[in-house]
């Protein structure tokens, strides 16, 4: 488990992050979301024992990140994908990974097995001896991910893992991250890709130099927005919008093409009443579905609110 308590980091007069308190349970995919300069990378670097916090506490697997003798152990448990791949461009993919595995003290046979498995999973085994300087951005990113995993770390920190990847490669990486979760790894992801975070993260923390909100993406949306249903009708008469708001179960309504979008308090109870009322009006209902708010909506609302004075 990763625990942060009132973590703060200053770079001279600039406050990168303050008052960050959160817990990341083992086996979760945890997303750190926020705008540029929100302190996401700084948080990741603090937890990776690359930089020290100005104040506050944090621990990884109960090892204190401020304790000098613990810091080396923590680094050995973490696989880090930094913001920029930072590969040795003149060396081949295999050598890049092999050197890193040696830095982590992985025995020779295990190194070979790990490198083969990781590069095969990321579709790069056949090009393992080519200098990585010749590779595309996406391939470099994949190798950087492979490098973070070459020593079988328990904790995997990924800073923008699918940045600069094409949709197919992004999916490969996402699937691989989900596979790592299945193996029991704890994964911390910094990302701007909200759709991706929504898809793979168990918990997300919205940060903007401080913790804005933390929770499951769906729960966050439900906590912030009224529940919405979308009813597709064959045609929508002009008077409908005015009349339907007279129903007590409907707190708001709008029309989008042939879709009637209603805010209701409890869809499970209110939907049958609404449908019954519509049918009594002589309207033909084609589809009914619950319109869910995306993580993007949550992000824009929370970060937007935070930006307003």
């Amino acid at each position, binding site marked *: 488990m990763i625990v942060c308590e009132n973590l703060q980091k200053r*770079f001279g007069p600039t406050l990168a992050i303050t008052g960050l308190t959160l817990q990341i349970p083992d086996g979760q995919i945890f997303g750190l979301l926020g705008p540029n300069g929100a302190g996401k990378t700084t948080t990741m*670097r603090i937890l*990776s*024992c*690359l*930089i*020290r916090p100005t104040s506050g506490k944090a621990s990884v697997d109960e090892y204190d990140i401020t304790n000098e003798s613990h810091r*080396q*152990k923590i*680094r*050995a448990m*973490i696989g*880090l994908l*930094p*913001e*920029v*791949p*930072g*590969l*040795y*461009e*003149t*060396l081949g993919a295999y*050598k890049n990974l092999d*050197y*890193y595995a*040696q*830095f*982590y*003290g992985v025995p020779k046979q295990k190194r070979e097995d790990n490198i083969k498995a990781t590069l095969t999973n990321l579709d790069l085994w056949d090009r393992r001896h080519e*200098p990585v300087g010749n590779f595309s951005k996406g391939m470099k990113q994949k190798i*950087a991910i492979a*490098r*973070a995993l070459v020593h079988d770390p328990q904790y995997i920190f990924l800073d923008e893992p699918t940045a600069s990847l094409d949709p197919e490669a992004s999916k490969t990486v996402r699937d691989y991250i989900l596979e790592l979760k299945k193996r029991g790894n704890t994964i911390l992801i910094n990302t701007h890709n909200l759709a991706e975070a929504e898809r793979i993260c168990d918990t997300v923390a919205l940060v903007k130099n401080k913790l804005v909100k933390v929770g499951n993406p769906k729960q966050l949306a439900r906590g912030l927005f009224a529940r919405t249903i979308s009813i597709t009708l064959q045609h929508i008469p002009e008077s409908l919008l005015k009349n339907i708001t007279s129903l007590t179960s409907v707190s708001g309504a709008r029309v989008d093409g042939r879709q009637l979008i209603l805010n209701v308090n409890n869809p499970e109870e209110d939907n049958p009443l609404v449908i019954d009322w519509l049918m009594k009006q002589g309207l033909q209902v084609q589809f009914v579905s619950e319109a869910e708010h995306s993580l993007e909506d949550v992000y824009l609302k929370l970060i937007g609110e935070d930006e307003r004075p």
Partner: protein
Amino acid sequence: MRKDLDEFRKQKLVIGSIVAMPLVLGVVMPLVLFVPIITMAPLGDVWDVEGLQQIGTFQGSSLDPWTNQTIENTSLQSQTIQYAILHNVAAENCVFFSCIIDNSEVSFTTIQESVCTGAYLENVTMVHCEGSQLDGRNILAIDSNVTFSKTKASEAQQVIPMMLNMVLMIFIIVPATLPTIIASYSIVGEKNNRSLEPLLATPTSDGELLAGKIFSSFIPSMGATLLAFLLGIIFLDILFIPHVGYAPLPTLTWLLCIFLIAPTACIMSVLACVIISSKVSDVRAAQQVGGFVVMPVVALMLAVISGFIFLSPLMIFVVAALYGLLDIGLFYFARAIFSRDSILEKWT
């Protein structure tokens, strides 16, 4: 370290310059300089005493000065001595007539009808004298028969030791210069590639990382220098052996320099580059600023070539010890700078 060396092997242009520099400076250049000197002024020929002028021919078979006194172990100043045996005397501004002068130093003096053996003569006029095993300078010998056992060295003999010293200094400067190329790539290059962050995220300690960086610059620099040193010795010996009859290199001075001063100078340069790397973020800037690193070595070179310092074994130990102390100081300074926090916060 192995990663750096492996990466370095791929930089063919850098390797080329690193191997070429010592070879050109330590092998090709000395050969180009030495070949004309050796061929134009052969080492075997010696020149006359400096300022010797012989006029006339010696009349008579031999002199037999009549003497009635012996003067020895003393200094003579502005005196006229005749019919005496002078032994172990230092004389100045004197006139000697019909004397035997043995094992003495004589200057600004006129010697007439006398016999000299084993004397050092300076600014002396000899008239109708005999002499052997003499040494000195500015001698006017009129109607005399004098031979000198010690003679002025040939121009080649005078120039070659100085040039050999210069070549030796090249083998000190080269290992101090090469790390400015390699260390710039291995540290500043790593900053530019942004490959420091994943490296620092490994459990490797700061000291291990620093040691790796030092050795990955030190090994190729000293390797290239030793290669050039070996080739330089072989080629110069091949050049000298026909003229002097033996292999003059390597001397003890050369061996001590290459195994004591060169490594300490090299480490000094590497450490200075590490420190410079903390302040600059461009390979070219690091190399340019790194040029100043060789200043202590250039100072040594100038001191040796100008004759201010004679590179005796003791002096080599002193210089190596000074460089070693400087290395220790620089290491602790670099160690303080080379910490993860400062690298990520200030270097990138």
